[in-house]
């Protein structure tokens, strides 16, 4: 019975076995405790954002819990592209799951150089271009807050790879659709929407932020309705596929993103509490398909009855 259900989806030219991926920076390098996380069953793994040079990341404490949310300030701690390729990627590949390499940087040239060092390496099905990390001092969020900057990065990377480019968008903008359009024109193949929302929490006794850098990025169920609105806006802005992300913690949450038009979803913070939540969400999707008498998850994608009229008119 369950064999008849088709969870596979396409994100542009990439076919994924299921629409449930794990989000960048929330699943280590993908190979941590694979039995605990049921990593081998997933639709895809987006790696921790990789930069050209190793980065030590931000000073602790890096996390602070808020109502149904989490502020983080990791600062893109990562081993750098070379050690990623040599040490992390082989283990990750062994899981047999599509790998999306998340790439970050301070300048367009860093993105380009990083992508070049990953080119021709087996197992990577797409790049996720992280132009939206709010937790690094230079660059980071600035790219998305000026559509030209984000587009510049995409143009530059587009020149050095034929692999699909997913652009990870920031929600901290007035019009996410404008940024999406600029990136689409520059050669992006898909979008991941969204990264974290800028947030702040203060210890009133010490008069300091709970996070040494001040603000951090807010993720988790608290942001889900905000993220869903941004995803819908992105879906309507261009004809490119969108991978939805933000606060997903249940099959119902994930299905909402598919209904409003996301081709796939990413699960982030929810894995911290329930290590195999992404796989459980897949199980829940199957239950939902059965209860609706559907056989393919594709039938749900974009099925939203939008009071503002259809998307992509």
């Amino acid at each position: 019975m369950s064999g008849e259900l088709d969870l596979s989806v396409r994100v542009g030219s990439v076919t994924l076995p299921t629409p449930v991926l794990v989000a960048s920076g929330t699943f280590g390098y993908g190979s941590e405790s694979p039995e605990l996380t049921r990593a081998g069953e997933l639709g895809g793994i987006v790696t921790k954002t990789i930069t050209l040079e190793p980065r030590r990341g931000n000073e602790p404490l890096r996390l602070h819990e808020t109502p149904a949310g989490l502020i983080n300030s990791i600062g893109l701690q990562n081993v750098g592209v070379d050690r990623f390729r040599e040490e992390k990627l082989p283990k990750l590949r062994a899981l047999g799951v599509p790998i999306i390499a998340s790439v970050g940087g301070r300048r367009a040239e860093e993105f380009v150089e990083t992508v070049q060092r990953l080119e021709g390496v087996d197992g990577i099905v797409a790049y996720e271009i992280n132009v939206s990390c709010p937790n690094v001092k230079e660059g980071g969020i600035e790219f998305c807050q000026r559509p030209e900057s984000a587009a510049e990065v995409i143009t530059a990377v587009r020149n050095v790879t034929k692999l699909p480019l997913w652009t990870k968008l920031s929600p901290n903008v007035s019009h996410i659709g404008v940024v999406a359009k600029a990136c689409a024109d520059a050669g992006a193949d898909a979008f991941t929407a969204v990264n974290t929302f800028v947030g702040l929490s203060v210890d009133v006794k010490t008069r300091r932020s709970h996070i040494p850098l001040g603000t951090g990025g807010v993720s988790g169920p608290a942001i889900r309705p905000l993220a869903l609105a941004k995803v819908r806006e992105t879906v309507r802005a261009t004809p490119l596929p969108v991978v939805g992300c933000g606060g997903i913690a249940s099959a119902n949450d994930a299905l909402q993103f598919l209904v409003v038009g996301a081709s796939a979803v990413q699960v982030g913070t929810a894995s911290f509490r329930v290590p195999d939540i992404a796989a459980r969400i897949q199980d829940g999707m199957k239950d939902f398909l059965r209860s609706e008498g559907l056989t393919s998850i594709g039938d749900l994608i974009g099925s939203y009855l939008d009071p503002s009229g259809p998307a992509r008119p």
Partner: protein
Amino acid sequence: MSLPHPRIVSAEILRNDPLTKEIREIVFRLPSDWGPAEPGQFVQVECRPADPFVLRRPFSIARTREGSGELRLHLVFAPVGDGTRALAACRPGEHTSLVGPLGRGFRPIPGRRPILVGGGRGVAPLLSLGDQIRKTHPEGLLLFGVRGPDQLHELEDPAYPIEIATQDGSVGFHGHLLGLLDALLEEGRIRPDSDAIYSCGPNPMLHALSDWAIARGFPAQVSLETLFGCGFGICAGCAVPVKQSEDEVGDEFGHYRFACVDGPVFDAERVDWEGVRE
């Protein structure tokens, strides 16, 4: 490492009782094939099972007891914030979810007499350490430093003789743990050439103890506490600054290690205490 894989289990609470005004013990029923855990490992506990949007909280495994097809897992904890207070309110018969065993525990040094040093509520992992090494290390000492009676609880079947330091002088040595250690060293009851220190407690105490031990030539291992996001290495939230040795330049995490997978137990001399939030 040939540790068993950590698992997600729904565990029944068998007991949840105060040991003192500030310290409680909670006991869970687990399947008999759970673990085994290394001493110093921890579990991630859903403290408020009804509220699905709160992260788990880490607790060191204090004791495990086998019997009649099940395993009993003991945690010793202090209700200090929302999560631990909610855990304190859970009742026997209720279930909650645990992930574990997790982390890297103590690595007892063969041939050295263990000196277990616990501060405040930090005695938990030392109990499991004592339980596990009492056969291979029949001699040892358990030092227990607390503010006063509100933190002081009976230990059932301790592995080693206990020495207590209380800051209010109500029991045992009057003063801090370091004072007690000084006294023991002076009396020749502990010795850097034959003993090893294993410790757990608040970070400032561990910092002071590490400095003390290193200065006197004691090998020492400390179980650190910091904020955990996940507890199994995927969030990079639990960074602990470590000193980098020459041959480690360019090591994967710059000079941060993850308390949840590289620790929580670290060699005392490895920790870069200046960078630890206390």
